């Protein structure tokens, strides 16, 4: 799919980009129709949404901070997808990562920052990878569909975390399920804008995007991932063992998803709060699909979803269009992106949108 430096591939890329942009436009247009039915002005609503996301440095910082977990979850889904797997378990893996990191930091509060932070993060990533190994191994050894196993794993770990933070690790005297605060040394620093939620987790996420890009497209193991993803039988004929790749891909994806949970709890809440993730893992699926699993594209699509999230509150407050509309728009984006050749259902001349789809 990515044969370099041929005219065809540029056409294909533009086609993918075109159909992604088209999907976004179509979803926003349908959202606008809903707003019109409410008797309100969609342009005003979208203008307020934009303002809410970008009106001042604090708003921009919060938008970037909302995009951070979506970016990491999107990358996690994309890594698995490139290897032919559907990681619907990012939601569970980010819980596994967050709880492991927090528990480690609560257990060793007096460690110096230089030790506490990196070791804590690594332990969380390890936990996420280990949790993702369950669907990976069951897929490789038993051929059980990873989607089914991921669903079970999601519920198991989310409920287990709820048990931990409502039971043995409940903050004494607290009425909501949360742990005590971790030491200052374990917290991610605020970035650029004081009193915003933006923290170094954003830089970590951008760094991971670059790492994933280099891994997938510049290393031989990444090449094996993509070969298995596009044609497992050909990969096997070429001496690659698809089962091993499946296991490795899930572990890698799990560690990235774990980072989404880790950066949230270390950068925003400084503790594990029951229900801290509003389905980042599932929105990550949308983020990855919108970008067709391209790491740099995922940065853009995560920013888009972060913008929708962070702007929707102001839109609701000022214009009265409920922020739930944003969830509808996000769902519509997934539908349109998931339908192959969405643009062909709208009779545009082929050369206008440079439509050439390889998927």
């Amino acid at each position, binding site marked *: 799919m990515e044969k370099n430096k041929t005219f065809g591939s540029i056409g294909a890329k533009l086609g993918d980009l075109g159909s992604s942009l088209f999907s976004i436009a179509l979803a926003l247009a349908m959202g606008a129709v809903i707003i019109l039915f409410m008797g309100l002005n969609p342009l005003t609503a979208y203008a307020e949404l934009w303002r809410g996301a970008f009106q001042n440095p604090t708003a921009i910082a919060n938008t970037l901070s909302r995009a951070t977990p979506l970016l990491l979850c999107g990358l996690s889904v994309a890594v698995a997808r490139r290897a032919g797997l559907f990681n619907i378990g990012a939601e569970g893996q980010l819980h596994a990562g967050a709880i492991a990191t927090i528990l480690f930091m609560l257990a060793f509060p007096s460690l110096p920052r230089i030790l506490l932070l990196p070791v804590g993060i690594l332990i969380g990533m390890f936990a996420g990878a280990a949790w993702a190994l369950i669907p990976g191994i069951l897929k490789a050894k038993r051929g059980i569909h990873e989607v089914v196993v991921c669903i079970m794993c999601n519920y198991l770990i989310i409920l287990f975390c709820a048990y931990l933070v409502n039971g043995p690790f409940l903050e004494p005297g607290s009425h909501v399920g949360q742990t005590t605060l971790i030491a200052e040394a374990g917290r991610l620093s605020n970035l650029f804008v004081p009193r915003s939620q933006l923290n170094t987790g954003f830089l970590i996420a951008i760094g991971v995007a670059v790492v994933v890009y280099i891994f997938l497209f510049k290393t031989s193991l990444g090449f094996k991932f993509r070969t298995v993803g596009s044609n497992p039988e050909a990969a096997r004929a070429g001496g690659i063992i698809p089962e091993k790749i499946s296991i490795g891909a899930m572990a890698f994806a799990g560690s990235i998803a774990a980072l989404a949970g880790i950066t949230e709890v270390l950068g925003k809440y400084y503790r594990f709060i029951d229900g801290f993730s509003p389905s980042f893992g599932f929105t990550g699926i949308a983020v990855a699909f919108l970008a067709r699993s391209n790491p740099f594209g995922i940065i853009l699509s995560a920013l888009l979803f972060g913008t929708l999230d962070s702007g929707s509150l102001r839109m609701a407050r000022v214009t009265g269009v409920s922020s739930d509309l944003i969830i509808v728009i996000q769902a519509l984006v997934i539908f349109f992106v998931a339908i*192959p050749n969405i643009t062909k259902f709208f009779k545009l001349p082929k050369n206008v949108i440079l439509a050439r789809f390889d998927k």
Partner: protein
Amino acid sequence: MQFLDSLITHILPLGYQLSIPIALAAIAATISERLGVINLGIEGQMLVGAFAAVVGSHLTGSPVIGILFGMIAGGVFGLLHVTVCVKLRSNQAVCGVAINLLALGLTDFLTTLIWGTKISALVTRLPNVTVPLLERIPIAGVFFRNQTVFFYLLPLIVAAAYIFFYKTRWGLRVMAIGHNPQAALSAGINVVKYRYVGLMIAGVLAGLGGAYLSVAFNNAFVSDMVAGRGFMGIASNIFGGWNPLGSFLASFLFAFAQSLRYYVAGAVVPTQITQMLPYAITLIVLIAVKKRSRAPEAMGVLE
């Protein structure tokens, strides 16, 4: 002795009541997966069913019409799933995720629009029924006293689904499609038609399950009120071996574990741990059962 008493008079009936929406979701999952379609959207189909049932009951004052609304809404979302997956050839799992997200956003959006909050007004609830004579049976009488119609409807639906799958030629064709759609196609079976009808029926059943939650078990719509029962239905279907009867029994087992916590388990075992049981059991069954022959082989394969 006291436990035995509350087991029969409270825990078993409650377990059965809790199993109704899960079992309906499980049968919906069985139909879908036997047709080779992964239907993760059952959760969302239930949610729109629950919402539409409350709207119907709110508008007409009749919970029965509400339930019809719920079934229609579920069926429409089933139609959406099958259209996007089969006709437009989207990835089935992604489509299910989108359906769930759409249902969540849409129901919250409309609830806020109609009632101003994320909880609907209270609506007329489906009246409970008491079966004369049978209610006087000494111990088991509790099953015939003051129960919803769903209580008796569910076994009929399970039986109908079982007879359909194992005693009719249509059911056998459905299973043939799940095993090998290409072979079914070359044997002259209209695979696409079967999938359209089957997924719509699955949507109707899911919508019925959602309607049960909102106008029979409760009497209002609350944001995200299905709360994973659709996924639990999918798990029951797997645990039950892609078979309506097995799905029903698995649903009951799962719901029974849930109902225990209201009476005994809460004090002994934390509720989250009992809630984990269904998923843990399903996972263990998946790992332990060596032969996957029970699973439709062509799950997720279009043709």
